[in-house]
């Protein structure tokens, strides 16, 4: 079996939409090197920055939340973002594990 166990994130997304929240799905679509979550892993974010699920081991979630809020504010349907290995600068967002991931953001509308 190659697929991951189902995490019921889409069901939660539907609950959030039903509760009149704006929801962005963030999905890992590509990985290189040792990334913590596999392709298809997902998190959801609302306009307030509440989030559920994960796309990494906590390394890039904050940045993903910011990007998702931006997507809702700018009313854009979708966006692809890539995260690479973090370098020396302490607060730069990156993957401490040494992997690279591409995350796809899409609004539920």
């Amino acid at each position, binding site marked *: 079996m*190659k697929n991951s166990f*189902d995490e019921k994130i889409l069901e939660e997304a539907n609950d959030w*939409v039903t509760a009149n929240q704006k929801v962005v799905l963030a999905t890992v679509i590509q990985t290189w090197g040792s990334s913590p979550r596999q392709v298809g892993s997902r998190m959801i974010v609302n306009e307030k920055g509440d989030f559920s699920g994960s796309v990494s081991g906590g390394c890039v979630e904050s940045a993903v939340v910011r990007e998702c809020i931006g997507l809702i504010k700018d009313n854009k*349907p*979708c966006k692809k973002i890539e995260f690479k290995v973090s370098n020396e600068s302490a607060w730069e967002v990156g993957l401490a594990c040494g992997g690279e991931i591409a995350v796809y953001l899409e609004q*539920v509308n």
Partner: protein
Amino acid sequence: MKLQTLKSIIEKKKNKSEFAIITNLKTGESEIFEKDKPLSKEMEVYSNQINEFFKSKKNGVIENSEIFVETYILPIKVIIVGAVHIAQYLVDFAKSLNFEISIIDPRGYFASEQRFPNMKIINKWPDEAFKEIDTNENSALIALTHDPKIDDPALQHALNKKFYYIGALGSKKTHENRCQRLKEAGFSDKQIDSIHGPIGIKLGGRSAPEIALSIIAQLVSETYKK
């Protein structure tokens, strides 16, 4: 993703069907792919690659394209024989994993709804109960009664149907006796050796939730070996 697409994905998951979501990363448009159903004109050119992802149950971006394929597989059927204390914790663990649990127990006091709210409990002997569950080599059996009258027929069914995981609770001695009975019933050493007995990985714990954890850990591990 359109809310309508999201809702139909959830519906398909509930109905236990296998499908894939195909997303055009440029436009954000997505559609649902099902075996033997036609794709939209736009996606038709990728049908070979999409089928390849679907067959191998993989997720990913089709090479040299902006098309993302995400496949959904059926939950694994796990049949628990014995609506005992450990089973109550197994049900809890299964909720956060992709397992679809059925419980068989012919003993009325055990198989009560009060003990297992919202669960499918079949209050029948295994031979009868298995007529109600469609099982195959993607199914798993957890036998927990350590009563030969109840466990043995279930183990025989699971061996005949080539379940990918078969575990049976009981001490080493109990398991030796069980193996002997199965041998006398005509099962080969190879078949009998495929039974995990005593069940579970070695955690050292003895409480019901600890044993449930050791069983579910073994089940997950065997699932990824498939």
